[in-house]
């Protein structure tokens, strides 16, 4: 068996030797950390493992998700799994999709200076500053589209000099867009009506009264799209 290649990384300032090619999360576990928080889906979707790091000889601050990013030689890293963020409470049905709604729940969006640090830190590569700019001028549709891939890791919030909670503004815009702006699906409403009026009752009752053998045959013989 070939020898395992190892790399040195620094977790919160302490050096560890970990196997090359593993994710930061695996590397931390290899180093002895046990995750109670700061770890969720391990698939890059839940946003629980936001991580910041620097590389030797490079002034830039980098970011990534610990469950997705490979540990590299010389990485100085720290997880920021949680960052304090206020969240407004509202009844979506009662809100109107306009600027005043955003300003009522998150008035701090107008403090944006345009420094763009939120965009730079976003591990999803979103144009965070641009969706806040859109929200700030009541363009809810644009804010909803630009923030669509947000996983709410909160790294943007940790960097904002205007103390904006970007991801909560983003989800408010997506909710307003989904509930109040996009046209309702007509075919869905029609189908719901058909179900309510009992169009499928006879067919369903027939299925319910079948035995297992009969159902299996029906399933095996069903029309299949090629």
């Amino acid at each position: 068996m070939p020898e395992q290649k190892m790399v040195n990384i620094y977790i919160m300032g302490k050096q560890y030797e970990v196997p090359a090619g593993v994710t930061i999360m695996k590397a931390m576990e290899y180093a002895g950390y046990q995750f109670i928080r700061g770890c969720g889906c391990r698939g890059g979707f839940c946003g629980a493992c936001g991580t910041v790091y620097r590389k030797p000889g490079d002034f830039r601050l980098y970011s990534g998700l610990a469950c997705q990013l490979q540990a590299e030689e010389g990485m100085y890293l720290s997880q920021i799994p949680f960052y304090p963020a206020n969240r407004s409470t509202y009844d979506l049905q009662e809100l109107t999709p306009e600027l005043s709604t955003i300003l009522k729940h998150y008035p701090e969006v107008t403090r944006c200076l345009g420094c763009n640090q939120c965009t730079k830190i976003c591990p999803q590569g979103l144009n965070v500053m641009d969706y806040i700019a859109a929200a700030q001028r009541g363009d809810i549709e644009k804010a909803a589209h630009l923030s669509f891939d947000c996983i709410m890791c909160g790294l943007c919030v940790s960097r904002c000099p205007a103390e904006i909670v970007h991801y909560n503004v983003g989800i408010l815009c997506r909710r307003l867009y989904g509930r109040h702006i996009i046209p309702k699906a007509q075919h869905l409403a029609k189908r719901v009506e058909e179900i309510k009026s009992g169009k499928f009752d006879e067919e369903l009752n027939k299925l319910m009264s079948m035995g297992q053998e009969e159902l299996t045959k029906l399933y095996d013989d069903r029309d299949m799209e090629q």
Partner: protein
Amino acid sequence: MAIPYFPGCTLKTKATGLDSSTRATLAALGVELAELPDWTCCGTVFPLAQDNYMGMVAAARILINASKEDDGRLVTVCSFCYNVLKRVNYAIKNNEETRTKLTQYLEEEYAGETKLVHPLEVLRDDVGFEALQGKVNDKVKGLKVACYYGCMLSRPASEMQFDDEPENPTIMEDLVGAMGAEPVDFKYKTKCCGSYQVMKTYDLVVKRVREILEGATASGAQAIITSCPLCQFNLDWIQEKIAEEDSSFAKIPVLYFTQLLGAALDVPAEELGLDKHYVDPKALLKG
């Protein structure tokens, strides 16, 4: 070819009539505007401290993004946006430290190349006031108009370089004349309306606004024009409050210059956005 255009936040919310009437009137004269694909708030006010670079970053980015379009110019109509963008551009051009700080932070090469132009300048320099005379209808003919510049368009003179006479600009009067309307002699034209002090010292602003309004009426004006959403709001909305307390007060419509010009060019009413005004200007523009 379309000129890059920065609308500004207020034109997407409270002053949509300024946005739509600017686009429509310029289009009617063959000048197309192309909104920048992504833009943020300009910062609203130019920082009082010279080394408040953070307050200039947003404006600098907007100017840099505009410089990447082929035209070389950037049009903006809101007086506040125009003031901030022009002053930040001036600082980048003339102050090496400001230029270095901003371009290093933004990681861009830029030395103030973007030429910021106001639609009034586009009308004067690209369309031409003489050419305009042949294109207008009779709707505003003979209408007496007070041209209100406020603070932001022409001051500070050395940085704004807006008109030959910063304390007595005449570009709007020339435009009004070209429309066939009649500019009145209006001594309050560059007086401050009180701006956002309306939030803090309301009574003082009411007093100031009333002085400006009555100055316009005394000059024989039937309408006031401006390019500033905040001036428009203060001069328009406060009239309701004055009239509530003094029934003898004579109201006067306050329009954006683009709305008046649009009416003279038969721009459709829905693009002029005349429905949001407190003092209804529609009767005035029936022609």
